[in-house]
C-alpha cells in the first residue's frame, strides 16, 4: 500500500520530457518532488506562472509570488508570468500536456467530483472545472476509499460533478486504474496489495487482466 508520497512517486513516472504540467493542490503538488532525472517538465500554475520553482528560502519569500495553492514559490530559468485569462487560454487550447488533480469521487466513465459537498462544504471549483474540461490527459491522485471505508471509485458519482468523462487514469494507495470504454481497468497494483483487495474496494466496474503487475516506484 502506498502513502501519499508513493502515489506522487508513481504519478511522476507518467511525466515525459518536455511536458507542461499542471499539478493540483495536495498530493498532486508532491509529484514535483519526484520528477525523473532525465526528464524536464515545466510546471504551470493557473494563477499565472509557467516554471514553478521550489519553495523559497526564508529570506526570499515574496508575497507577490505564489502558486495556485497560495503557497510561496520561486521561479525557474525560463519562467514567465501572465494574467489568468492567458493562463486558462493555455489550458483550454491544450498546451498543458498533463493535469494531475485530487478527487472526492471518480466514476467508471471518467466523471470527477471534487468541489462541493451539498449542505456541508462549499469551497468552490477554482480552476478545476476548466482543467478537467480542457486537458487531454488527466490523472487523478486520490484515496481508494473514504474514512468510512466506502469506495470512492464508483459506478457513478454521488457528489456534484466537476467534469464529465474526462479522467484518463487514477492512482490510489492501492492501484493504478485506467478508464476506458466506460470501465476501470486495473493495470498495476501497489506493492503488497492483492488484486482481491482492490476488487473489494472498487465499487465501479473493474476489468482485471490475468496478470496484474506490481507497480515499480
Amino acid at each position: 500500500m502506498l502513502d501519499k508520497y508513493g502515489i506522487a512517486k508513481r504519478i511522476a513516472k507518467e511525466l515525459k520530457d518536455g511536458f507542461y504540467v499542471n499539478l493540483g493542490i495536495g498530493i498532486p503538488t508532491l509529484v514535483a518532488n519526484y520528477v525523473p532525472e532525465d526528464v524536464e517538465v515545466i510546471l504551470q500554475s493557473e494563477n499565472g506562472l509557467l516554471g514553478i520553482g521550489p519553495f523559497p528560502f526564508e529570506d526570499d519569500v515574496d508575497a507577490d509570488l505564489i502558486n495556485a495553492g497560495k503557497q510561496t514559490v520561486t521561479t525557474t530559468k525560463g519562467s514567465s508570468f501572465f494574467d489568468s485569462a492567458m493562463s486558462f487560454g493555455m489550458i483550454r487550447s491544450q498546451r498543458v500536456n498533463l493535469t494531475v488533480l485530487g478527487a472526492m469521487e471518480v466514476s467508471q466513465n471518467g466523471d470527477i467530483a471534487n468541489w462541493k459537498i451539498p449542505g456541508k462544504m462549499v469551497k468552490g471549483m477554482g480552476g478545476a472545472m476548466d482543467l478537467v474540461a480542457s486537458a487531454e490527459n488527466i490523472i487523478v491522485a486520490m484515496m481508494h476509499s473514504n474514512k468510512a471505508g466506502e469506495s470512492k471509485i464508483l459506478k457513478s458519482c454521488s457528489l456534484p460533478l466537476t467534469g464529465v468523462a474526462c479522467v484518463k487514469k487514477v492512482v490510489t494507495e492501492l492501484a493504478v486504474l485506467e478508464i476506458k470504454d466506460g470501465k476501470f481497468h486495473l493495470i498495476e497494483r501497489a506493492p503488497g496489495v492483492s488484486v482481491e483487495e482492490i476488487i473489494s474496494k472498487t465499487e465501479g466496474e473493474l476489468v482485471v487482466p490475468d496478470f496484474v503487475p506490481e507497480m515499480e516506484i
Partner: protein
Amino acid sequence: MNKVVKNVEEALHGIEDNMTIMLGGFGLCGIPENSINGLIKKGVKNLTCISNNAGVDDFGIGLLLKTRQVKKMIASYVGENAEFERQLLSGELDVELIPQGTLATRCMATGYGMPAIYTPAGVGTEVAEGKETRIFDGKTYLMEMAFKSDFAIVKAWKGDTHGNLIFRATSRNFNPLMAMAGKITIVEVEELVPAGDLDPDMIHTPGIYVNRIFQGKDYEKRIEQITITQK
C-alpha cells in the same frame, strides 16, 4: 490626460450601495488593500463583489464580509474563510461560484468588447444549469456572458499618470483583466511615476482602460501560506 487622484476617498467617489464591483487579486496576492479599507470606511452596502476569492477572515474581502457590506459574492474559490462559510450556510450571503477560467475570460470579454464567450468549463455540471450549450467540432461548450460592473478596482505594481500599468509576478492574476472590464476603473499602485517613465513595450495595461489612479500606502501584502525551503 492626468488620471491621478489624490487619495483613496477621491478614487472611490461615486461608488454607491447596491453596485457591482470587481476586485483584483488571487487569494491575498495583488489585492487592492487601500481600496478595500476605503470601502469599509465609506460604508457602502449591499455590494455585489466579483473577485476570484473572498479573502480570509481578517484580511482582504473578508473584511468587507465582516462588516456585512457584501450582498452577493461572485467567485471561483472561497475556502479558508469561516465567516464567509457561516454567512453562506445561513443564507445571509448570496454566492455564485464560477470556474476560475470562466471568471477570467468573462472579464477579458468585457474589456475586448465581446458580449459572450464559449468555454468547455462546467459542461455537464451544475454550472451549466440554465445556460446555453453549443457543440463545435464535436465538443460541447457553454456560452458565458461578459461581465457588467459599475467599478473595477485593481492593484498594480507600477503605474504612470496616464494610467499605464505594470504588474509584478503572480500579483498580476486578475488585475489586468478587471482593469479592462470596469465601467469605471480605479487603480492603486505601489509606485506612481510620471508618464514617460515606463517602457512602452513593457506595459501590461494601457492607460486607455484606466479612469483613476492613486499612490497606495502601507501595504501589508499578507501571505496566506508561507512555505519555505530550509537552508
